[in-house]
């Protein structure tokens, strides 16, 4: 039933009130029936349309037709109704809009428990990552990064590091030699460096003391590949030379570095060892960062530290004066300066850190392995 505006016969207050009441209840009824914007537009036109909307009609039929003495009262009423109608029309629109948005949102609902789409990040290689972490610890201590050739001469790999020709210590290095070198003098013969230590000499040849360097790099040994050996692996070498470097400084520096790497609760211990290019020489152990030094993981024995609670992690020592003799001309007089050097295997540290059980996994590019480090 559409509402039509009646003509007023009676302009008494009661009659006016009754007519207004009918109008308002019709308005509310129609408003409630509006379900979408098309219907709303018809609703709006019928009530506030300029030509023949209800408001225009009450203006015509009620106000204009009113006797003079009732004009004021009717005018007031028409104004109030006008406000009421306009307001209701506006609220009706808001109501249906909100309702539509809600139902659209409901319809657009996704199953948020389905898995996410992955655009995989590339993973850092665990050994390179480990090397970078170690290098960064030493950079923070004022060490510069240096590098040097992988294919070295006998001089830099051995002689200048105080491995004299025919010294048994050379046997421990399992060297891979370059072919067809016999015609050269021994010190010029090429080989694959067995450690990053030759860069110590190369750096001291080009830079005067004081120096602090750290040398990450590839090294090679004649070790057939198996679960714990690889003919190619990675080392990080360090060297500090100055007028005041002591054995206590060696210990303090490495202790600090290990705490930065493995956590502040890690302890270090040093025991005598032998390297031709350092004297005194030491092997550094860290308290096992896997079992916390207890040698046990729960009821199980801790294999990485062989139940001892300690892990051998690097070799180090005070630079042997014989080494300085080779670079004495560049300001390295062993009577005036001193230094320490250290070297560690990055692959081994990565193996311990991540619990990897086969070193070959590092070098076959298996994505299933590499992605674990992403």
């Amino acid at each position, binding site marked *: 039933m559409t509402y039509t505006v009646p003509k007023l016969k009676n302009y008494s207050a009661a009659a006016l009130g009754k007519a207004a009441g009918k109008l308002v209840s019709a308005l509310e009824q129609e408003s409630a029936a509006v379900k979408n914007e098309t219907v709303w537009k018809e609703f709006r036109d019928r009530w506030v349309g300029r030509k023949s909307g209800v408001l225009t009609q009450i203006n015509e039929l009620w106000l204009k037709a009113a006797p003079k003495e009732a004009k004021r009262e009717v005018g007031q009423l028409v104004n109030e109704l006008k406000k009421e109608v306009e307001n209701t029309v506006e609220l009706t629109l808001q109501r249906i809009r909100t309702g539509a948005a809600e139902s659209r949102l409901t319809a657009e609902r996704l199953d948020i428990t389905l898995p996410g789409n992955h655009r995989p990040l590339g993973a850092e290689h665990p050994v390179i990552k480990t090397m970078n972490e170690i290098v960064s610890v030493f950079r923070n201590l004022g060490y510069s990064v240096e590098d040097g050739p992988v294919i070295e001469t006998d001089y830099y790999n051995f002689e200048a590091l105080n491995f004299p020709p025919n010294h048994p210590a050379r046997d421990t290095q399992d060297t891979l030699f370059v072919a067809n070198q016999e015609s050269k003098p021994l010190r010029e013969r090429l080989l694959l460096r067995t450690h990053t230590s030759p860069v110590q000499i190369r750096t001291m040849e080009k830079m005067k003391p004081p120096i602090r360097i750290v040398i990450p790099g590839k090294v090679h040994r*004649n070790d057939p590949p198996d679960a714990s050996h690889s003919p190619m692996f990675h080392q990080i070498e360090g060297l500090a030379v100055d007028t005041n470097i*002591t054995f206590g400084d060696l210990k303090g520096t490495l202790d600090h570095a290990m705490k930065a790497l493995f956590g502040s609760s890690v302890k270090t211990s040093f025991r005598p060892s032998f390297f031709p290019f350092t004297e005194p020489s030491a092997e550094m152990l860290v308290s096992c960062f896997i079992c916390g030094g207890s040698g046990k993981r729960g009821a199980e024995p801790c294999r990485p530290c062989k139940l001892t609670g300690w892990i051998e992690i690097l070799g180090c020592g005070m630079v042997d004066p014989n080494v300085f003799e080779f670079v004495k001309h560049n300001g390295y007089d062993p009577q005036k300066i001193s230094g320490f050097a250290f070297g560690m295997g990055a692959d081994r540290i990565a193996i311990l850190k991540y619990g990897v059980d086969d070193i070959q996994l590092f070098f076959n590019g*298996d994505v299933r392995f590499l992605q674990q480090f992403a």
Partner: protein
Amino acid sequence: MKLSSQWVREFADLKVDNRQLADDLTAAGIAVEAIAGEGENTVFEMEIGTNRPDAMNHYGVAREAAAIYNLLLRPIAPKLPDPGSAAAFPIEIQDATGCVRFTARVACDVRVAPSATRIAQRLALIDQRPINNAVDATNYTLWEMGKPTHAFDLDLLEGGKIIVRRAMNGEKLKTLDGVERTLTSEDLVVADAKKPVALAGVMGGFDTMITEKTRNLLIESAWWDPVTIRKTSRRHGLHTDASHRFERGADFESTLLSCNRVMELILESGGGQLQGNVIDVVARRLDQAPVALHISEVHRILGQKLDTQVIYGILHRLGFELIPERGGEFDFTVRIPSWRLDVEREIDLIEEIARLYGYDKFPNTLPAFAGSVVEQADSKKDEKLRSSLLGLGYNEAVSLTFISHEDAETFSNAPVIELANPISEEASIMRTSMLPGMLNMLSYNLNRGTNDVRLFEMGSVFQDQKTGMPRELKRISLGRTSPSPQQGETWPTQLFFDLKGDVETLLHAFEHKTLSYDSHLAEYFHPGRAARVVMDGATVAQFGQVHSEIAAKRKLRQEAYVAELSLDQLYRHGLRQIRYEALPRYPAVERDFSFLFPNEIIFAKIEQGVLSLALSELRSFKPIEIFRGGKLPAGKYSILLRATFQSRERTLREDEVADWSKQIVKALEKLGGEQRA
């Protein structure tokens, strides 16, 4: 190396248990790696550094223990009868370089038989096979005091004398292991009047060895030159307990003691009589020079101001003799014990002090430093490339640096570095290209069911130079396979352009003027699906699909795309400087052009044709869609191109955009293009 803890304890009254003893020895540098067995059968697995041959035996370890605990060391004191005169057996040292001292004893009427149980058990405990009382006596002495000796059957030595000389080239000697060896003039031998009877310091001769028939014997205890022994040992591939010790340096003073000890053990077990007194021929004395010790130097190196009393005590306990030098330039003259050939310098004494004092007792300090951190020239560039690749989803990989001869020939024509003693034939050349390694890794993944592979490796390749050091050139390789094994039509296109996009992302990090692509390619690439990248006139990369023949040979189960960037070339360019550019304030206008082109008009030509118009407000010119086949005329393809115009100063007018569009259409038509409706 195995040692018996009970045997060690024979020489010093050690109060500590085996566990503690092992720990204390290890802390002093005489490393006990493991303890096996119990009670009197306890065996220490030792790890003794090459510089400490003096500790590679029971007495030597006891000497260290006595020094650690400040205990008396019981000397080895063999008791032998005194026959009065020296034995009448001439020994002639012809080579005083190789043989410094030769001590010998002779015994007669010895009964060769199995050793006493005590001796045999001790040897067996440390994995030494008992043979007979005479041989075991030499072996027992070796393990007791570290001095190798040798026993000859006297009756098989011809001509009644011993000569120490170099062998003659081609001379033959059958050694104890039954191998007949051809000697060179560098080998040092012990010979009788007629023939070599032992490879000096390495192994005795087969023909003069002790057997059950032996009645009379001669014991040799000599001091051999370490370098000579090492060379002979290596030349003949013979590494023995004797050579191991001699090449590290034996105790000059122990020849007499060890000779006596062996003889004592033989006489104890096999009866017989000593023939005459000891024969001791010294070609030259081996005197270790005393070392000057400055307390200040000890402090300078170790950092802790150890008391002179402490320093004196440690060195004294280790057998060093300290003679105070009052008012002199240094504090002590230190005489070195004969068994410590490794101690020659003041720094060696400082190490002795530090290790016995205990490394862990030195306080940890941090040095002050006046220098500054110097950046590596290329570290920023390395880091930029690496982080871009990780962001693009490439996994960082590391492959071995060796390749095979065949791969070297296939992947590079650079002169190669070959190894003299490679791990295997497949690993005998230092890589001249990163690609064999990359292809191996791709195929490794494909063979394990991983299809969608993205890998990169940063590394070096190696090239021989006729003279001087080989070149080590930095490279990056990229590897990519299709996401699935289906060899669909669209994958090659998509993979190629994905890879090209990735390569471009990497290259755009570097300042350059021009970047162009052509088909001057290595033969291992697919000739039609690969490109060479030239930056400012130099080749910086090659990328694309691997040639089907290579893929077939390597049994690659899917199409593989690879790239190799020459960082040595690329790094001649600086990293692109980042500068702010004001954002455009006026709208851009786009115009599309649909054209039909002959196939030979490649995009580069189209682009060049339009860019040569030099339209100053043209911001970009790009292909949007390409279509081939279908109803198109043969030999032609359709392309939708989009030009974007934008001015920095103003809003563009309709008529000027129309004019530029007309110029573009004209240029495209000039190239043989037909505009489509």
